[in-house]
Each structure stands twice: as C-alpha cells, then as structure tokens.
C-alpha cells in the first residue's frame, strides 16, 4: 500500500507541474460555465445541475484520457518504468497508484464546479440529493474513462495514440448506441442496453442511485485496471 501511495502522490503532483493540468481544469470549468449560463442560469428554469452533468459525461470523455495519456507512456519513454520494475513495487500497486492519482486529479477538476451549485443555492432551491447523485455518477463514469485511458497508455507507445485510443473506444460506443437500433432493429439494441454506460449515467443525473449502475461502473473500471496489470505482467514475463 505504501508503494501504491508513493506512486499515486508522485503522479498527482506531476499533474500540476505541467501547464496541461491547468489547461484541463480551465477547459472543464469554462465548458461548465457556458452550459450553466446558457441552460441553467435562466429565469424560470428549475435549479438543477442535470444539463451540466449531461454535458460533463461527454466532456470527461475527452478530458480523462488527457489525464491518463502520460501515465505509463511517459514512464516508458523516460525509462523510469525499468526502475519501478526493479523495485519491490508490484505491478498491481503501480497500476493502482496510477489510477488513484488520476482519480484524485479528476476530483480536483470537478471541485471548482461546486461554485455553480453555490450559485444555484443563492438563486433557487436545488435538490442536493440529486446533485450528489450526479457527482457520484460523474466520478464513476470518470473512473471508467480513466481506467480505459490507463489501459490505452499501457498498450500504446505514444501519448497521442493512447489519447486517441481511449477517446475512440467510447466515441465508437456512443455512435453505436445511436446507429445500432437503425441497423439491427430494436431487439439487438435492447440486448446491448445493459452495457450502455451513457444510459446508466442518466439515472444518476436525475438523482437515482441504482446499485446495478454503481456495480456496472465499478466492474468495468476493475476490468480495465486488471487488463492493464495483465498486459504489464505479461511484458515482464516475456
């Protein structure tokens, strides 16, 4: 656990040592503020963060891979992965440390949006249960994006490819969600529905915390992390 926290805290600090970290935070806040001013902060509109959360699910799809694209590619490029491999740290603690640092960065990215909740409180009566559910959903969806980004970073040789690979996967899933019913009919679509993360996120947005949705995101995140561990372990053994 000590090695895992060492890797996590090093990576977390490194995220804020590069301008890219601040650019990600600024872009996220800017995007949220635009949606808030255009869609939420309008007279007669309900005091809810729903449209913000709907927007964030898409925005995070592009921002989370930017957090993780450096993680393992950079260690490989610098040669520091070799030093980690020679240390007592296990591959599992290394991958988990990388994931925790990116999750902590995601929390920092989300934090400034609480200012929008304060504005809602000042001018309306927001439902805090719904807002908390939305943030939980964002963290779970974000975890899924981050873990897929880590896997992309493990299997690709460059940061750019890692970024594109991670974004491409979920964009493809999103497009499939739109196109599949037209091609294959409603039956095939209903079979795919349980695997649709965007549909599951909608429940969180309206304040519904369904344990099956929570489990889904945790399982998918775990799968990506375990796959990353397996790939790194196989590299060590070959």
């Amino acid at each position: 656990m000590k090695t895992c926290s060492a890797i996590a805290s090093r990576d977390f600090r490194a995220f804020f040592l590069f301008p890219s970290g601040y650019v990600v935070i600024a872009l996220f806040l800017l995007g949220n503020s635009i949606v808030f001013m255009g869609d939420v902060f309008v007279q007669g509109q309900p005091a809810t963060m729903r449209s913000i959360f709907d927007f964030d699910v898409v925005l995070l799809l592009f921002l989370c891979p930017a957090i993780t694209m450096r993680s393992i590619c950079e260690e490989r490029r610098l040669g520091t992965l070799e030093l980690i491999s020679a240390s007592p740290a296990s591959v599992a603690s290394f991958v988990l440390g990388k994931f925790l640092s990116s999750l902590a960065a995601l929390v920092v990215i989300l934090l400034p949006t609480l200012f929008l909740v304060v504005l809602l409180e000042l001018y309306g009566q927001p439902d805090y249960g719904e807002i908390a559910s939305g943030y939980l959903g964002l963290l779970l969806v974000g975890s899924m994006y981050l873990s897929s980004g880590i896997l992309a970073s493990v299997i690709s040789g460059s940061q750019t490819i890692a970024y594109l690979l991670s974004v491409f996967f979920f964009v493809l899933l999103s497009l499939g969600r739109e196109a599949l019913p037209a091609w294959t009919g409603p039956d095939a679509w209903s079979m795919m529905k349980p695997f649709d993360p965007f549909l599951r996120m909608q429940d969180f947005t309206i304040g519904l915390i369904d344990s099956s949705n929570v489990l889904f995101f945790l399982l998918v995140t775990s799968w990506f992390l375990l796959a990353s561990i397996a790939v790194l372990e196989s590299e060590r053994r070959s």
Partner: protein
Amino acid sequence: MVGFLGHNGAGKTTSMRMICGVLPPSEGSILVGGHDLQTHRAQAARIVGYLPEGSPLYPEMRVVEYLRFRSRLYALPDPAEAISTAVDRCGLKDVVKRPIGHLSRGYRQRVGLAAAILHDPSVLVLDEPTSGLDPLQVIEVRQLIEELSADRTILLSTHVLQEVEAICDRVILLARGRLVAEGDLPSLRRESGMEDASLEDLFVALTAKAFSEGGVVS
C-alpha cells in the same frame, strides 16, 4: 567490483535486467542473496540497487523529492536518514533542492546512483554509468563508484576497457549471450597465453575465439 564486458548485443544489459528482476530468465533461475527472483522478487529487489543506462529520472522533480519518492517505493523505515546518507555519499548536498531536469549529466548520474544506494543494497548493478559524460565527470563518477564498492558488490557494465582495468577486481566476458570468460585479469591473461597483452587485445582475442567456436569457451 565485477566488470561486465561484451560487444554490442552480447547480452550485458539483458543479463543485468534479469539480475534486477526487470526481465525473467528464459530458462533456469536467478538467486540474489538466496532469494529466487521468480518467486521472491520483492525480497530480492531490496538487496539489489540498479542504475540503468542513461540514468532514467523524472526531470520535473527536485532531487530531494525524487529520493523521498524512491525511499517510499522501498518502504524504508527511516527515509530521512537514508536520504541524508545517500546525498552525502554522492556529493549532492548543493543540488538537493534543484529540479533534476536542470542538472548536468554528471549530477544526474549521481542522483541515479544516490537512488540506487538509498536502500543500502549489498549488490549494485550499474549499466554503463559513465557513458555520455565528459572526461571530468567520468573521473568523478568513477571515483564515486570506487568509494561505493568498499562495502558492497558492484556489477559494472562498460565499453571503456581502461575503466575495467582501473577499477574492477574481476571480469565477466559475454559474447552472443553466452559466458566466454570469467576471472581476474592476471589469470585471464595467463589462461589465454597473452600475459603481456592489453585488455583490449585480450577482449578481441577471447570474443573472436568465442565467435569462431560458436559457443561457450569456459
């Protein structure tokens, strides 16, 4: 101090990576301090210090931050003491607060060495520690390695044969991934019948012999 010699592609770096647990052996096993690297990698890693070629480091970190990170990676009981000892031994006192990316290659090599000895390993594996350094830096790093060899075994890979002649007690010569010769320099010269030969001539003769025979010489 053991010098690890061989032509490019002989298998020096691969062997070193295997000794440090970075790569697994294709067959057989490697014991470090009695610990099998395949089954007890973490225990073996605690008694081996490793400096890969080019001394990979995180350029954005300060020297002391990096050493702190490494001490946490090895879960050292007294990190402050370990860092202070390593900084003293490697002459890093003046640069501990500087970002690694701002240091000269010689200093970066020292930082790599400090990190490698942080957990006080009994075996230190150094892959071409003087490559890419200017002559003054080479002398400094070589002196440092000699000092470190006083209380530990050092396995040193280098292409600089004079370096081996100057500081190594024993030599291991590899060719085509196989052991070609092993021993101290006087006995290697004696066994090869080249008692007055330079290490360069000896290296060329033994490697050529291994290539012509296509296998292990001794």
